[in-house]
């Protein structure tokens, strides 16, 4: 039975219990579901060629054996099978494959198989998200067959393109534009058409990457600010929208501000996903008048959790993946020594305030086991009086420090930066990079570079040249990086040039080299203090400022 039919067959209480009942599970009940489904997955995965390529002849039978025998994995462990789409080597037959960028510039894509069981669970959990995004209290939600959804996410083969298909399976929502049309459209064209249709039909749901939604909402605001005659504005629009427009115009004139999306649309549900959402959350709420609900989803893990009406943190679904967590201290040990196998804890062992890298085993015949997807979360609390439960909730922090993700678009690693530097042939002697936020709380990639002393005489190098040259090669290597500029108009690269010898001085002073990817802020200030030391005074040599 489709969700749409259930809407008329069952009461709200019954539907809430079916889709959002997981919120009131006890820890024990939640773990029972997790452990039981893991046993199924262990059986399927261990028997598959893919599983055996990692297990090397071992067959775990219990959770403990599974955690002991299966090492923590990364996509490289699966690449030979998954990139070649070897169906027969998988734990279960996939219904479709989705893809995403693997590592900017180094590996173009990574693919992940989706089984029927995974899709069913995905669908169920997406409906849960839909219910929760419209809810204002426990058991209260407002979904109607005639609602419209503006959907600012990439179409298939990206996992985001699955969501409209899954929803269409369950309810006759109208997507603006329809999923079929959207596949053949560019990003800007899609959003523009979406808003045009929204102006005619109304928008009840909005869903997308936080950064994209922010950009799209701003475009809408600026569209409204464009000089057009009243006739142009109201032509072809339904009466409801004309009335709303006129009221909004009057109100905004009175308040001396431009028309915001909230003046024209009354959203029932507002969902966003991706990295750096917290940078855009407040602005989005201001523009739409509704606080967006965060959900966690990804190519490998599917949809694994979402917030409730309280927006206090994300709750994980019990049946999408089996969750393990690497505590922060273990993560540090692993970063200091990559050969160190960090210890993990289970979902019911997390503590409030703890920061963890998540480790996932995709259930229902999924390919990934004890997989480091590269996301870091904070446990914001266990149990909520408002939500009436006693289970942990989380907040997404960012990617793991070895990856820089700007606004959910890029996945820049040490390898990709080295590659860009190599291609640009810039005489960079040393560098370190950190994801930072500007005064508007927008993310950017801050590259601290030191040039080769020997090349300074023969080359004309300024910060601008560096920025342009590196930017060109980042865009050349990484389509997503280019999209940042093309779609959102963001140039995420900022360069600080350090004087020659700064990195060497840092090493001498602190007895260690600075980490290349995302060093701690204090390490960056130590580096800058080395940069500021007057070499002439210190060593009696020429001060080599560039």
């Amino acid at each position, binding site marked *: 039975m489709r969700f749409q039919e259930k*809407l*008329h067959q069952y009461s709200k209480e*019954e539907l809430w219990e079916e889709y959002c009942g*997981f919120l009131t599970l006890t820890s024990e009940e939640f773990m029972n579901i997790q452990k039981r489904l893991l046993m199924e997955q262990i059986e399927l995965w261990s028997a598959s060629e893919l599983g055996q390529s990692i297990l090397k002849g071992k067959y775990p039978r219990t959770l403990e054996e599974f955690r002991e025998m299966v090492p923590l994995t990364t996509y490289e462990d699966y690449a030979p099978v998954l990139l070649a789409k070897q169906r027969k080597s998988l734990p279960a037959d996939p219904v479709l494959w989705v893809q995403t960028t693997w590592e900017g510039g180094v590996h173009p894509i990574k693919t992940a198989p989706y089984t029927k069981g995974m899709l069913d669970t995905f669908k169920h959990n997406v409906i849960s998200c839909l219910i929760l995004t419209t809810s204002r209290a426990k058991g*209260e939600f*407002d979904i109607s*067959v005639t609602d419209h959804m503006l959907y600012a996410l990439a179409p298939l083969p990206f996992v985001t393109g699955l969501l409209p298909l899954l929803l269409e399976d369950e309810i*006759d929502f109208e997507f603006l534009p329809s999923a079929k049309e959207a596949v053949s459209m560019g990003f800007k064209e899609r959003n523009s058409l979406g808003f045009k249709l929204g102006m005619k039909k109304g928008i009840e749901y909005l869903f997308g990457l936080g950064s994209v939604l922010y950009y799209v909402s701003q475009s809408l605001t600026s569209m409204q600010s464009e000089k057009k005659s009243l006739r142009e504005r109201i032509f072809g629009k339904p009466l409801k929208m004309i009335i709303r427009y006129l009221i909004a115009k009057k109100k905004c004139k009175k308040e001396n501000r431009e028309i915001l999306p909230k003046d024209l649309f009354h959203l029932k549900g507002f969902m966003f996903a991706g990295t750096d959402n917290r940078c855009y959350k407040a602005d989005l709420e201001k523009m739409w008048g509704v606080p967006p609900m965060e959900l966690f989803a990804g190519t490998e893990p599917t949809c694994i959790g979402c917030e409730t009406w309280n927006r206090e943190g994300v709750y994980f679904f019990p049946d999408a993946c089996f969750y393990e967590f690497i505590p922060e201290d273990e993560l540090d040990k692993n970063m200091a020594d990559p050969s160190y196998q960090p210890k993990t804890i289970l979902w019911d062992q997390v503590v409030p305030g703890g920061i963890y890298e998540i480790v996932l085993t995709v259930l229902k015949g999924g390919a990934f086991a004890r997989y480091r997807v590269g996301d870091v979360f904070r446990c914001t609390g266990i149990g909520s009086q408002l939500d009436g439960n006693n289970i942990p909730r989380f907040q997404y922090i960012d990617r793991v420090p070895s990856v820089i993700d700007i606004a959910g678009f890029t996945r820049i690693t040490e390898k990709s930066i080295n590659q860009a530097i190599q291609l640009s042939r810039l005489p960079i002697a040393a560098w370190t990079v950190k994801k930072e936020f500007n005064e508007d709380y927008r993310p950017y990639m801050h590259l601290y570079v030191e040039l080769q002393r020997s090349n300074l005489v023969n080359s004309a190098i300024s910060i601008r040249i560096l920025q342009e040259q590196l930017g060109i090669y980042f865009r050349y290597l990484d389509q997503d990086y280019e999209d940042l500029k093309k779609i959102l108009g963001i140039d995420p690269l900022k360069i600080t040039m350090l004087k020659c010898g700064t990195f060497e001085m840092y090493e001498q002073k602190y007895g260690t080299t600075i980490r290349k990817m995302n060093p701690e802020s204090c390490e960056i200030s130590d580096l800058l203090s080395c940069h500021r030391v007057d070499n002439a005074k210190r060593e009696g040599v020429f001060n080599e400022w560039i």
Partner: protein
Amino acid sequence: MNGYSWVSVISIFCYLFLLVAFISAKKPKNVIRTFIAMLAIMILWNGGSLGMRLQLWPSVNFWHHVSLLGMFMVTVGYFHFVLDFLDDRRNHGRTFWLFFYIGLFVFNCFTNLFIPLPEVVTEGGKTQFLYHYTDNIYLLFIPILITLTQLTAIIWRHCRGNRIAFQQLRPIITGLFIMLLGHTLATLPFFVGFPADMLSGAVNAFFLFYAMYKKKLFHMSILLSKYNCATIAVFVTLALFANFAAPLELFLIDQLGFGSVAAMAIIAICSVGLVVILYLGIRHLFNAIFARTEQQLQALVEQFHEEITHMLSVEDILLILSDTLQKAADFDRLLILTKEPDGEYHISHTIRQLEERSFVFRPDHPLVTHFKTHSEGLALRDFERTTAYRSMWEKEKSQLSNLHIEYIVPLKSDNELVGVIIMAGKQNKPAAHPGNIWFFQAIAESSAVAIRNASTYEQAIQEAQRDDLTGLTNYKFFFEVLDREFESIKDSALSLCLINIDDFKLYNQMYGSQEGDMILRHIARILTGSINGSCHAARINGDEFALILPGYDVYSAKLLAENIASQIEEVVNTISVDGPRKLSVSIGICSAPYMASSAKELYRNADMTVYNVKRSGKNAVQIYSSEMFPRKSAAPPHKSGYNENASTIYALSAAIDAKDHYTSQHSQNVAHYAAALAQAADMEDDIVEIVREAGLLHDIGKIGIREDILNKPGKLTADEYEAIKKHVENAVSIIRYLPSLDYVIPAVLSHHERFDGTGYPNGLAGDAIPITGRILSIADAFDAMTSIRNYKDAMSSKDALQVLHQEAGRQFDPELVRIFIELVESGKVELRCQTPQQTTIFGWH
């Protein structure tokens, strides 16, 4: 009452009937509450109209306004009802409309603007109410139309693109049109005096009722309550007496001569009597119409309960349970799963002969977990909507869906889930529906208790008759069966095979009792798989099985026994991952009536035959013959096992000596030290002798190890070390064939075990290592250390004792080490000189 009063009477009766039924509903949903409010509004409308027509106290105008209140509120009532029916909790102006219509009514009360007061006209004794409507009445239609337009828009939004929602709302929409039609007709001159509006209201109420019924918002059984029967009885009585009380009173006074008080009393008594008679009659009628099936089902429940009360066979109970269920519904599939001792639920009964029996619920199956806390059955589609369902495995889900399971009923007794009934109806005809779910539940409750009792009984019987390990008939019950079968052979034959496993104790010592138990279970499976239903397999001793074979003559019993012997050999050979094992059986057969005239004799003869097989080299099948056992046989005098086999031992020692130059002298030295240690530890003389003999034989297994490994000058590789370790088992395999020396096996088998449990072959620790083995271990080590090998010099005895001291508690028994050190240091034991050929590494073999 004028001609059209019956419309009001019937309408009020219907409303009251529904009102009483729904008021008695437990935990009513919002939509039920609104429906009750709608009924109350209708009663006001019709009641007012009736009061007016009957010109009841206080006045026609009063009842006119009561009727108008109902009429004004019906639109807003409808509005609320539809919103609740759609489960739409948004306000949509509910409160506004409520107060608006109340306000409108109050306004009309004072102004009579929309609906004027009726003119009462009496013509020929008939009273009529004439409403002189003006066009103002159409003003009233404006807000009604606005409300209904808004309602239509809401309905449109809900139904657009949703066929199911539209179907659910269709009766409501139809009712709405009928009501609108009724209201319109009431204003036309042609219908003056006819309450078309009220009639349409009543019809509409039934459409609403039907819509709720279709949406399963209540069960029809709600209508059959005793309150409803009482309401009908009272109402009918009132209606009758309203018309006939006066004529009856006249008749009683005038014709029968009663006084007026007496006449009134009689009428009162009659009316009460009539209410009671009507009440009973109506209940009987309802039961006859609606509850006939229920009664039949009730009778089935009672009959079922009676039948199973004294049953002690689970199979029989399930059969009756299945038959009873099939009398109540048509099943495409009916599976009854019962709990097995391991906690799993297996199919114990099905109505399909060829049903796939691999359907199993594990103890952690979400359905089992659900039923641990819930006692009511549930439809699979409802279970699919629970959180528990989220932990279902994909294969479990497809199993249920492939079987087209529709409804599942737990069999629970004292909170224990003893089984589950799984049912699927025929195509388009569900097996479980609201009318028979209670029946399934009642049957399940009765049968759960019966199944539990019967299964406890069967388990007790099973425990009394069955062997725990193998599940075969046990020793005690074996004789009962043998006697029974012997009594019933008559013209046929009865053979008895006794199957004794050769050297099973030794097998257990070598490979552990766990593997021994596994062998016993395998043999049991071979036996049960080799016999037909009329034969019996039993385990009558630790290492002995019996087959009672009715109808088998000597020849067929022998063929069967040979076949079994070869199967056992084959299975044992392939059972272990460590490599092939050797195990044989000695089988003795005796058959009646050829060779025995009683069950006792049959057994004794078979037993003697087994004994004979053992004596004559084991591993054979023999048939009893009286010549085998002369009546007076002189028992041979007992000889020392060692002396008996001394020549063999020396021959073997010589062979080892030829292979390993260090071992022969070493064995004698070990025997010497071990015997001395045993003596110093105050052991009995015969133990000392065993230890000495074990010392001589402990390395006999090296005869099976490659010479190049035995004499390798350097350090052994892991594989070579593994090969060397095999010498312990090899030694035992050789000694097995010297039955009179098998008492040394425990010592030989355990002389490489370590006190801390890390030795081999069995990893025994502490006191679990036989004391003879612990002694041998110290003696073996001491001699090895103080000997010269081709890659190391001999250690001094002092250093060797130091090593023993260091290893006490880890490799060696600390107490025995202490005694041995004292023994050597005091010079009580003669230290054997070491020849250059004799030494081994510290990890001595």
